[in-house]
């Protein structure tokens, strides 16, 4: 069984981004980039399935600029067997990425595709579901537990009121939530090993996909800033403020 894991290169989660003064976007020059945290959880889950003997091969895929190779090497250091980079410097939106992934699903025929539920840059939360629709596959979003049993996968999902379990026929698409697993730390020997693993680079045109963006960003602005209020010395002062000043209790 082959597992395909798409990974995105995104601004590191510890970075507090700044909006560019001309309002065209956020400033990502000279900012630390990492693998999107939810994708790291996806890679970890796929590798664990391989270690359990459920999967035979884990393929990591990234779509974007040449530097995404670093993201793929990280995936391979966690344990993915090989990488595919769909290289383009064009702006890629979720629908375009889903179409590129659909083309790769047709080619590689994975039984499972595990993706992060959302990327922490555009916060879109779309790609996995779009891929599932385009490939006509069942989906389980926001997974906190994955159990492969024969030609089915049982997935426990984090939903608004608690947890829900679905059984999907394979092949299927799963998107990860935070509590699915805790990704391992990559070790130096594994980083060295990852450098020798195969990494193919292909062009979006070769997959026959038009990646032109559909959504135009007109402006990016700072959100309204909230300023610090006052420190109160004790509980009595707090209750007085809430009752008489804020009038919320």
């Amino acid at each position, binding site marked *: 069984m082959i597992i395909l894991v798409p990974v995105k290169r995104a601004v590191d989660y510890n970075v507090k981004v700044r909006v560019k003064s001309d309002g065209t976007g956020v400033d990502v020059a000279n900012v630390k980039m990492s693998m999107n945290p939810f994708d790291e959880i996806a890679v970890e889950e796929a590798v664990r399935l391989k270690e359990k003997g459920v999967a035979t091969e884990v393929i990591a895929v990234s779509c974007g600029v040449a530097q995404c190779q670093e993201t793929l090497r990280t995936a391979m250091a966690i344990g993915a067997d090989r990488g595919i980079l769909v290289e383009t410097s064009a702006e890629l939106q979720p629908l375009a990425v889903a179409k590129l992934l659909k083309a790769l699903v047709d080619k590689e025929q994975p039984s499972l595709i595990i993706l992060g539920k959302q990327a922490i840059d555009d*916060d879109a939360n779309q*790609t996995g*579901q779009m891929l599932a629709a385009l490939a006509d596959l069942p989906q389980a979003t926001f997974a906190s537990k994955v159990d492969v049993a024969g030609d089915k996968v049982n997935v426990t999902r984090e939903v608004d009121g*608690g947890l829900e*379990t679905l059984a999907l026929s394979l092949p299927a698409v799963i998107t990860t939530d935070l509590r699915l697993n805790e990704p391992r730390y990559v070790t130096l020997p594994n980083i060295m090993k990852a450098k020798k693993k195969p990494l193919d680079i292909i062009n979006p045109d070769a997959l026959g996909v038009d990646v032109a963006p559909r*959504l135009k960003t007109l402006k990016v602005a700072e959100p309204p800033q909230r300023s610090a209020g006052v420190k109160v010395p004790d509980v009595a002062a707090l209750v007085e403020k809430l009752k008489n000043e804020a009038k919320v209790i």
Partner: protein
Amino acid sequence: MSALVIAEHDNTSIKSATLNAVTAAQACGGDVHVLVAGQGAAGAADAAARISGVVKVVHADGQSLKDGLAENVAAQVLAIAGGYSHILFPATAMGKSVAPRVAAKLDVCQISDITKVGGPDIFERPIYAGNAIATVQSGDAVKVITVRTTGFDAAVATGGSAVVETVAAVVDGGKSRFVGRELSKSDRPELTAAKIIVSGGRALGSAEKFQEIITPLADKLGAAIGASRAAVDAGYASNDLQVGQTGKIVAPRLYIAAGISGAIQHMAGMKDSKVIVAINKDPEAPIFSIADYGLEADLFQVVPELINAL
């Protein structure tokens, strides 16, 4: 031009997130219709028909829609999508799961988590955990949208008298099956609709302490309970209580954060609250930078004091 809102419901009633999505749909211009897809959902369809400003309710009822499987709900939306210029979902677990399937099948982009409508094709949405607000324009013929509920007032739930049209439910896709559900039982207000929220963080130290300290304060205030990611990861609180970038986005009148330091991912989920109270031992905790009232103290001492003082 008309807009279709996909209702979030439990077959007998409409969830409040639907009402915020109706307001967003009205802002897009044109008539607003609501789809209620479920099984035995006549109660929810009637409730939808009473929402002020809704012109028509489309009610699809059948076994395939019983458990809200994304594949079937998306197929149901697509079956009636013709003619709508806007298809809006509340940005709930359901909306987020179904909307991208609909958009992909229509070959249009999706606009996620909108907080403002600037015109029929122009929307505002937060990116980077709310650290930037993007204004975007869609060139696609149909706009598929998820609505951040805190961005829009709730439409009035009564006073409307929309017609209810019944349509056939789609056939089950057969590739996914509902197995079970473990919903947290609670008599408290729903987190995303609560007027007051009491949230606890890692400083509570254990699930027992979380219960012992946070619950009585929430009881006293008639509040919903929230938690930081750290508290949920540590098992102090259940996953559906997580407030933040990837959890619930809330904007109550009063948000009390106890023992929460204030990671940007947490603040992304609550910074639009009207009044924020932070209780923390650490004077440098980032949460103080957005709190209206900060109390620098040991929560184990002051939260019980606060309960007594209320």
